[in-house]
């Protein structure tokens, strides 16, 4: 199945802008389902972006991050064609990783 991470990385001059959208329920553990039972907490805790072997951005997330989370940031020091590695881990030990070429 396609990766749960959608990334757009575009570089203009020395600055690379990165946008990521991740498919994940981000359940808070405080919501009840239709049968009235609590849906257990299930959310991404850490999201890491690496480029050229260096962490360029690390996110620590709590339960207040929206479902199908989105994040945007920019960093310097990368060029078109460099590879960006994105990986996340959630509180249930789930994880996913993908790579994207900087356009």
């Amino acid at each position, binding site marked *: 199945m*396609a990766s749960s991470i*959608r990334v757009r990385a575009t570089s203009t001059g020395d600055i690379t802008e990165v*946008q990521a*959208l991740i498919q994940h329920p981000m359940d808070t553990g405080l919501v009840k389902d239709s049968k009235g039972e609590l849906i257990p907490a299930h959310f991404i805790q850490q999201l890491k972006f690496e480029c050229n072997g260096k962490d360029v951005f690390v996110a620590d997330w709590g339960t207040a991050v929206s479902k*199908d989370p*989105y994040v*945007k940031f920019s960093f310097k020091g990368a060029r078109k064609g460099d590879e960006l590695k994105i990986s996340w881990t959630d509180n249930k030990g789930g994880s996913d990783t993908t790579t994207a070429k900087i356009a």
Partner: protein
Amino acid sequence: MKARIHLLLGSLGAALVAFALASPRVIAADKVDPVADAKAFQNFFFQKFPNVKHEDFVNGPYSMNEDMKRQWQEKEEFPPYEFALEAGKEMFSTPFKNGKTYADCFPNGGIGIRQNYPYFDSGEGKVITLELALNRCREANGEAPYSYIKDEMASLTAYMAYTSRGKLMDIKIPDDPRALAAYENGKRYFYTRRGQMNFSCASCHVQSPGERIRAETLAPALGILNAMPIYRSEWGGMGTTSRRFVTCNSQTRAVPLEPQSDEYRDVEYFLSYVANGLPISGPGARP
């Protein structure tokens, strides 16, 4: 809520009067004229909201409220319906067990045709919506039909809508009395009050677009289906036209009809026809 009750009693009273006076004159004057209807419908909104650009009406509540429009535009940079779009594209090209694909069921391979749906099928004498056509295509190829309100149908219609983005809505009413009857039935459904709240679609989307009902900013009825299917933050997921109709009904405390029953197909026919000339903007993101 108090106002609603006066409305309830008031309209029941008025209805009594109208009912008593229903003289032939009212019936005779009512020749069905969709062209005139569409013009009057669009002018009503263009005059009520003079500074909303005509094509902006398809953006629903965002055409009514600047602060919300900014939040929407920010979300549109990387919209939450991205996953449904990609899933739809994948499903659209995955062949059925018999080797055929959806492209074989639709004109132009299903690409860029959403603006012609729903259409009136003279053979069957009924309105065919995009969702119905997709399920019929599945059944014709030996596949089980999808639920009309769940994600698979939303993903398929999302992809087909995306391939028509920007094309102008172009719904035809053939010269067939049954087509006129279906259009009129859709119009009747749109203006008929229902549920204990005694609301019709028009009570919210014609009388008070741009205003709030609790937290929701109401969308104008003009172009209200152009963005379907929509990803609603409220639902935390995709919603087809069927899901929107069913939930709207239950919110007025009316028991919803079966998805794709005649009334729903006809009201979709009416609403799409009067939005002719406005661009398709699906799939959409909504509050």
